[in-house]
């Protein structure tokens, strides 16, 4: 189980997350929605330990193991993965050597690397010559997102945070990425997912167990997939969000 308890996070001296709590059980898919600037990406970064973000209070537990004091690489080794909203480009480091280095780091051996890589490429319909290119370097938006999901498939973490993996994609790419994620889910049913999204369309491909609405650094409402519909109809523009907030049960 991935548990976030009363998590408070600052960036550059500003308090962004104000006591956020949620817990994701093995195999569950959670959707996190909310307007821009509500703190969704901050949560994603804080979960992996981005040094630009400071945890001012609360806990993050992965299968009971406290993470807050651990460096990002240790969190990854415990089974946490973040698909970045804006994956960085690294010139001069080839995809293949990067994937292989990480694979060996996580699995303690390079065994089955090639086999798993070929399978993951196939699953996501990615051309093998992708591997000769530099890490995310000069990739289109869609290629970058595919690169993230490829890594998710290959590294097989326990819990994955997908930060707007579905945004900025054309319809065809969205479809590939979403189908990739749901195929992954099938091969690895224990994978827990926290999907940060603006886009209710993703739910055509993914069954959400829980939906959370974040607003001004807090989760103001959690519920089942029906909550997405509510957002779709009412939106969470400023005024409406406040309405939702007033009407919602406080969680955590």
């Amino acid at each position, binding site marked *: 189980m991935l548990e976030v308890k009363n998590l408070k996070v600052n960036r550059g001296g500003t308090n962004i997350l104000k006591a956020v709590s949620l817990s994701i059980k093995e195999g569950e898919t959670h959707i996190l929605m909310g307007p821009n600037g509500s703190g969704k990406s901050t949560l994603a970064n804080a979960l*992996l330990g981005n040094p630009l973000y400071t945890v001012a209070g609360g806990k993050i537990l992965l299968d009971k193991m406290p993470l807050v004091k651990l*460096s*990002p690489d240790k969190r990854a080794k415990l089974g946490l993965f973040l698909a970045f909203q804006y994956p*960085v480009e690294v010139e001069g480091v080839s995809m293949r050597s*990067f994937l292989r*280095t990480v694979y060996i780091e996580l699995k303690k051996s390079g065994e089955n690397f090639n086999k798993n890589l070929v399978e993951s490429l196939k699953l996501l319909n990615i051309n093998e010559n992708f591997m000769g290119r530099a890490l995310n370097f000069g990739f289109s938006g869609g290629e970058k997102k595919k690169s993230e999901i490829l890594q998710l498939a290959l590294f097989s973490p326990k819990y994955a945070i997908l930060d707007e993996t579905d945004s900025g994609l054309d319809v065809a790419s969205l479809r590939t990425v979403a189908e990739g994620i749901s195929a992954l889910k099938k091969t690895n049913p224990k994978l827990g997912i926290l999907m940060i999204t603006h886009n209710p369309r993703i739910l055509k491909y993914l069954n959400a167990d829980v939906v959370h609405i974040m607003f001004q650094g807090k989760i103001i409402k959690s519920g089942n997939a029906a909550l997405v519909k509510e957002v779709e109809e009412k939106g969470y523009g400023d005024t409406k969000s406040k309405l939702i907030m007033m009407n919602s049960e406080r969680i955590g």
Partner: protein
Amino acid sequence: MENFKADNYKYGFSYPEKPAYKLEKGLNEDTVKGISRIKNEPLWMLSYRLRAYKTFLSKKLPLWGADLSGLNFNDLYYYLKPYQSNADTWESLPKDIKETYDRIGIPDAEQRYLAGVKAQYDSEIVYGSLLAELKKKGVIFLSMEEGLRKHPKIVREYFGKAIPASDNKFSALNSAVWSGGSFIYIPKNVKVELPLQAYFRINAKKMGQFERTLIIADEGSFVSYIEGCTAPIYSQDSLHAAVVEIFVKKNARVRYSTVQNWSRNVYNLVTKRAFVYEDAVMEWVDGNLGSKITMKYPSVYLMEKGARGVILSMALAGKNQFLDAGGKAVHLAENTSSQIISKSISKNGGGSNYRGLVKVCANAKNCKSSVVCDGLILDKKSYTNTFPVMDVAGKNAQVAHEASVGRVDEEQLFYLTSRGISEQEAVNMLVNGFIEPIAKEFPMEYALELNSLIALEMEGGVNA
């Protein structure tokens, strides 16, 4: 952390000195005469040396670049012959010397992918080899002394013609006391597919090594030449002041790659220059990891139309190191082109500079030159600077220059570490990525060696 450099330097070992002959310490006219006498040289070479010695005395230390005030010319040995003869099998070398090259891996590399080897130990080439089929084609790969003996006309025609003794204080010094180095001639239209390798090893304390290399690539030929160098770690300084002259004739191509890995007590002050003729190509691929101080700017003089020069320079400066490297491209004819790429990394208080010149002479029309120099600083104690000079007089020249200096990108670091790679390894990965455009130009085995040397250098932490 204090000594991690010494611990990480694989080649810091030494063997007791057992010289066959060693000149007394210090530098004077007798030193110069002594070296010439031992080598039994023609008179013209002795007078050349003596004139060069006078030039050396008259020249000041450079007023720019590194601080060389710690260099005491009279506290060095200028000539040490380690062994009586020049071997053509490794087995016939004295045990210490053979072991040294085994530990460096030269005999193994020779077996696997080299066309020929010259191994210099202190002042003399002690071992040489060249594939029989290349000998048959007329390829000459000798020590400079053998070259002078067997091909006196060619040597006299080219020696000191690209780099006169008076070029700078250290070319004058080399011209006065040179010993060892390679003499190479590649006949017309002969392509030497496998690289030739020279390996320079200093073993003795307070040693001055002054090898002299001359490469002549005749029309339409090709050769790839690689040099490596290492030395023991001593508390006293040594000096390496080489001169390398290359003549690339019409339509020929020469690639000269260096993996410089001197120990941290070596002053490395080297002059390298290539004259490049019609439609010929000269490529310098220069990797600098070691030494206390390096000043080295491999140059291309583009003599005739269509000549092209490429200078790829990489430097990694750590604690107590100052590497002032770069390149010079001088366009003397029309339609010539040059490219300089420099990547320097500074860490743990080290300093690395790019210093370069692009000169397009007035009669050189339609020339192209592009210079890219990037510096990467890994901590707050370290520093980097760029000194690019452009002097363009020729008409219709296209000269481009880009420079950047930066630190390790925090976002890249987080991306890599969030995948499970330690911060240390992530920095290594970024550093290797940074120099990749240059590392990939080395022959594969050397690129791997370079990467593993860099990984060793990086051990002990970014902020160590």
